[in-house]
């Protein structure tokens, strides 16, 4: 039982990466185990918890519901790629400032989701912020400080000139 393997080329966090994977290899496993980017976490492997969320060509996707071979040639951003020049991004800084994480396992998924959200909606209302985080599960924080962090991240982003 030898599986056919496929060569895929991905641009991950701005770096061109290659991997040879079977057709059934999940993008989450490819990132974590083939490319060594273990910051993306797997909480359920059925697309509900959102811990594995990464940005595919800038849009949030569940990497546990995505086959690596289907994203050949595309751009992926993971939590490891959110910082700029070694400085944590506004969303990352806001999470630390607002105590929006405890065990930190779900955090990369929230950070990726919110990075895309705040890019598209830099000044969200309460309702919009709630909607933005409502597709990710966190078992530690009760979400209150995550919501606080969304608004704080928007402020930090604005201070940086919407960068």
């Amino acid at each position, binding site marked *: 039982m030898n599986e056919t393997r496929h060569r895929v080329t991905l641009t991950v966090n701005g770096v061109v990466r290659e991997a040879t994977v079977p057709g059934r290899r999940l993008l989450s496993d490819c990132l974590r185990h083939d490319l060594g980017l273990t910051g993306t976490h797997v909480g359920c492997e059925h697309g*509900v918890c959102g811990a594995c969320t990464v940005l595919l060509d800038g849009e949030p996707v569940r990497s546990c519901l995505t086959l690596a071979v289907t994203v050949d040639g595309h751009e992926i951003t993971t939590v490891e790629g959110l910082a700029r020049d070694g400085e944590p991004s506004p969303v990352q800084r806001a999470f630390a400032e607002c105590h929006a994480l405890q065990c930190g396992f779900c955090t990369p998924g929230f950070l990726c989701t919110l990075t895309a959200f705040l890019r598209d909606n830099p000044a969200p209302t309460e309702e919009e912020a709630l909607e933005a985080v409502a597709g990710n*599960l966190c078992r*530690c*924080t009760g*979400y209150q400080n995550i919501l606080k962090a969304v608004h704080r991240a928007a402020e930090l982003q604005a201070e940086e000139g919407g960068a």
Partner: protein
Amino acid sequence: MTTKLFGEPVRRREDARLITGRGRYLDDLGAGALAAAFVRSPHAHARILDIDVSAALDVDGLVAIYTWEDLPGALAEPLPLLIPHPALTHGRTAYPLAREIVRHVGEPVVMVVARDRYVAEDACALIRVDYEIRKPVVGVEEAVRGVHLVHEDVPGNVGAHLVQEVPGPGGVTAREVIEAAPHRLEFRLDIERSASMPLEGRGVYARWDADDGSLRVYSSTQTSTSVRMAIAARLGLPLPKVEVIAPDVGGGFGVKIVHPWPEELLVPWAARLLNREVKWTEDRREHFVSSSHERGQVQHVRVGFDDDGRVLGLDVEILHDHGAYTPYGIIVPIITSTQLLGPYKVGAYRVEFSSVYTNTVQVTPYRGAGRPQGVFCMERTMDRIAAHLGKDRTEVRAANFIQPHEFPYDQGMTFQDGRPLIYDSGDYPEALRMLKELIGWDDFPAMKAAAAAEGRRLGIGVGCYVEGTGVGPYEGGHVQITSDGRVHVSTGLTSQGQGHETVFAQIAATELGVPIEKVSVVTGDTRRFGYAVGTFASRAAVMSGNAIALACRKVREKALRIAAEALEADPRDLEITDGMVHVAGVPSASIPLATVAVLSNPLRYAFDEEAQRATQFAGPASGDRPPVAEGEEPGLEGRGYYSPVRSTFAAGMHAAIVETDPDTAEIKILRYAVVHDCGKLINPMIVEGQIHGGVAQGVGGALYEKMAYDEHGQLLNASFMDFLMPYATEVPRIETAHLETPSPLNPLGIKGAGEAGVIPVSAVIASAVEDAEGIPITGMPISPSDLYALRRSR
């Protein structure tokens, strides 16, 4: 003083790595390790007739297949019963791999090791296990009927039976008191199962060093020291040849205190046997069917009370669902029985529980650990009494409170640590006053009436609890100041997101007078600290916090002694500020702690300029004294242990305002208020975070979460699609206020905070829904369809 950090909302030191993807969780380790996967029972109760692995043998990348028959020596024995108790007359634990009988869906039967997880699962799918299916026992009432048995040698399926009786004045029993009471009520309560459900499941990764004959195991555990002892014992290895490390752990909430899990023995065993690194990472379905659940109880309550609502006698019979095995003993029903009393003085109390086996996943502590059930019982009782007497619910509670001048207050029972249930401190009337103010209790009737005028149904609810925290036997801490001025703190218990690296650093920085940036903290690594119990029962801050403080005080005393000699001063005149030891009020007469560390360790060899100061020709030395004085040790380090005489009792009170939809029966929490007393706060930001998270889990338990077993013992909702954990949209904003009644039992005056938030939530929501609907709420969770059915059945 710049270094006074105890009590400050210091930002977490863990976060820098966790927000950038540099955390190191179990499955992030061991790139290239072989992967283990398990064939698990698809049946709730069956005899294994045959295991045929032949079809799996051709799988490319397969390394090994193991069944129970392959397990040597102690590994073939049942897993340990961790907490024996005289009342647990029929304790039963599973084998690491099933031997002959499987007793719940998900029980491991075969272990496969292969090149990667995909291949291991391919092989699992090709292994055929023939079963003779037996009648499963599902639900506590089915279990006590005893028609079918989970364990053939456990009659009536009763693993444990315990009666505890606290007589009233003159030795009158609770039942006698109730018979004679002016008012009596009797009712039944049902509490569903839920589970810890951390976002990261369990996992084990083992490295065998054949040259060294040593084993290093990483486990996503709440107790690395005890996992280590279990592995050494079951694999027959000398303890010093085994090290266990809890890396970053993605939440625990109780399930990871159980140990050794089958995988925690099997993976290291296979790694040693194969001389290859082996790793197993639990997937979500495995977590649902092969880890632990909690909560499930049926309670029968009888209460007698007077015209003021004072409880004269309380008699509670509990049927506790233990699932298929009892590895963690009967801790959960013991806690329910004892913590049920809450902040109240009950005239006479009788509590009886039967802990019964069912063909379902085993039950072990989940955050709250039996308390939510006990509090549900007592708080439902208080509401019933208030309704019966037509009194305000808070008034009835106040009539039963232990008063501030009555501490220490002896409840006359034995707590989960085997010690007397004596509350150390608290101020319950003040907590209730604060809560009523925070939620606007007295203004609510007007609010309710105004809403009703618009066709809306509002209800307000309240719940009080007392939580025994910081149970023994002990924890320890080690503190070392090195010659670069850095402070290295280690403690044996583990972290699962509570921010221990931060709060323990705050304690060390405050005790030693050093900047927090100089302090690093390691938890849960047996290479650094081998003596520990673990993280559970809201005990980490109390136990390790105090142990670290005591270790710091030893180090400080030694530092002052050495510095006094160098400064030719009296140690009593010295202070440490910002890492400098100086004469009080004379900042110029000072010496850095780094230098004190150099001086503390007499050297023959210098390796840098600083070290030269400690070498033998460096300065004037007394020729008639040994370089290390009698009773001294080289180095600026110390170890401290904290072992409390008994637990310290935190308390809290919650209130909620809910709205129920008159048509759809949807339940919305409009406001949620918490008054919390965990003694002195080390880091208020972190305590608040713990409360938020606890309340969110409580909301899950009150409104959404249950384990839907069918009559065949199949768990129908074993995924995040069907087991409904709250998203942000389901959790209300939590308003908090803190009361601080310090614990007189420990040097820092602190009490535990980890579990608090979750404990009263089901009781509070039930109280509020009942108030909104005017229908007695007797079970949790309550879904819109449950409420709809209740309305229809009126």
